């Protein structure tokens, strides 16, 4: 069990989401940064789809009631276990009674706490993710608050002190797709053009690529509202609502794009200009409010290469973490 000692708003229990139910109108939910939670689970030897805690505001403080292996991934936060510093992307062991504090990030936006055995809330519709609109899943279908006690799946922790770290994906994965004129405080993400790209004027198409779009403070798990000079439609189009997925970039009549994220509705009717490729959704998740985004066109085959690069990074982490844990288990300190 883990006690939530103290928690900033907007933290919740999430796993990799509820994809199979999208077609029945149930939102995806799940973590915003899938790579970060997946890495935490992989480092701890968990099944990939176990749940962790997603944090979007700080500080957050947890007390471990029993000795527990844990990993903190995602944003580069100042993390301490009691008074001892813990590096970002680190897997270690907490003894019973120890308190883990996750303070505001110096880079990135969302941090993830994974524990060996996972946060063991009931599985509803194939997932432990919190579904806020329906108020189910996760911990009582709601955001976490101080005083909550989270169940942890039974497992024998194996990590010996001091644990080990992983190279974060922003350092490990190639970012050579970023444009040469990328400004500071700007995240580049790769997109495929979407169905209604041709509806925009040529000048607006150019501007879509060239603008450093500012992520507004209204942005949240449902979607990112972007600020910049509005895009112009060459032709207005009224569309019936149709299925949408996280990563779709829509342009409402105001002309300022919206990117649908984990808690997005399952259907929408705004024209779609582009779709952020799945292996770059974690980059969006880690782009802080107020920072900027650049969209970079990518060919479908190169998008698949990006998928494979992310998979290879996870596979390598899985292999090395497994070796480290087996050394711990045999009593030979690595």
């Amino acid at each position, binding site marked *: 069990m883990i006690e939530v000692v103290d928690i900033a708003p907007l933290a919740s229990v999430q796993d990799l989401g509820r994809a199979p139910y999208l077609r029945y109108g149930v939102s995806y939910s799940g973590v915003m940064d899938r790579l970060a939670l997946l890495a935490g689970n992989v480092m701890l030897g968990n099944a990939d789809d176990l749940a962790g805690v997603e944090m979007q505001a700080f500080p957050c403080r947890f007390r471990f009631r029993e000795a527990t292996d844990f990993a903190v991934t995602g944003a580069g936060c100042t993390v301490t276990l009691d008074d001892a510093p813990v590096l970002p992307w680190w897997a270690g062991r907490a003894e019973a009674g120890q308190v883990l504090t996750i303070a505001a990030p110096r880079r990135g936006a969302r941090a993830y706490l994974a524990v060996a055995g996972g946060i063991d809330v009931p599985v509803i519709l194939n997932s432990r993710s919190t579904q806020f609109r329906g108020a189910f899943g996760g911990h009582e279908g709601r955001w976490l608050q101080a005083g909550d006690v989270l169940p942890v799946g039974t497992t024998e922790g194996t990590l010996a002190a*001091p644990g080990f770290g992983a190279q974060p994906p922003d350092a490990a994965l190639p970012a050579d797709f970023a444009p040469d004129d990328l400004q500071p405080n700007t995240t580049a993400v790769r997109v495929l053009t979407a169905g209604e790209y041709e509806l925009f004027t040529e000048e607006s198409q150019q501007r879509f690529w060239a603008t450093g779009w500012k992520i507004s403070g*209204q942005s949240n798990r449902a979607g990112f509202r972007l600020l910049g000079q509005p895009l112009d439609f060459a032709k207005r189009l009224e569309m019936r609502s149709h299925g949408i997925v996280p990563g779709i970039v829509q342009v409402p009549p105001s002309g300022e794009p919206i990117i649908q994220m984990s808690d997005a509705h399952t259907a929408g009717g705004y024209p779609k200009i582009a779709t952020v490729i799945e292996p770059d959704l974690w980059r969006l998740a880690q782009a802080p409010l*107020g920072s900027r985004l650049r969209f970079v066109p990518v060919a479908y085959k190169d998008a698949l290469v990006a998928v494979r690069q992310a998979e290879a990074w996870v596979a390598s982490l899985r292999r090395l973490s497994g070796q480290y844990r087996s050394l711990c288990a045999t009593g030979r300190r690595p």
Partner: protein
Amino acid sequence: MDLAKIKALIDLVSRSQVTELELTEGDSTLRLGRSSAAGPARPIAASAATAPAPAAPVAPAAEVAPQPASPEEAAVRSPSFGVFHRTPAPDAPPFVTVGATVEAGQTLCLIEAMKVFTAIAAPHGGTVEAILAESGEEVEAGQPLFRLRA
């Protein structure tokens, strides 16, 4: 006392547990001190950092959060990017005004981010010396919002 010697002394102090060193030679006195800010908040001291990690998983270099300089120590900063609100509701009076006396934990303002309002509390009791942002404007993470004299 020449510069090379002073530099050597600084190196010596920074490598040791010494928090203060005073040295007088002739009519010149040198005092070196280590601020308490170099305490546990600095991740470089991590025992974990020196641990052997598996070959590829490597911990990133720890980044040290900037320590506020003394004139800004009393500044209450925004914890995140968002919209700064001085009032609990559009027509309500502000939480605090310049010159107001506040207690530790008293709400100074709201920051609206991700469609959620977060109350920012006074870290300690004191007097509001200045309000450094306009109500309704967007503020950056870490931006000073109030100057609070203890």
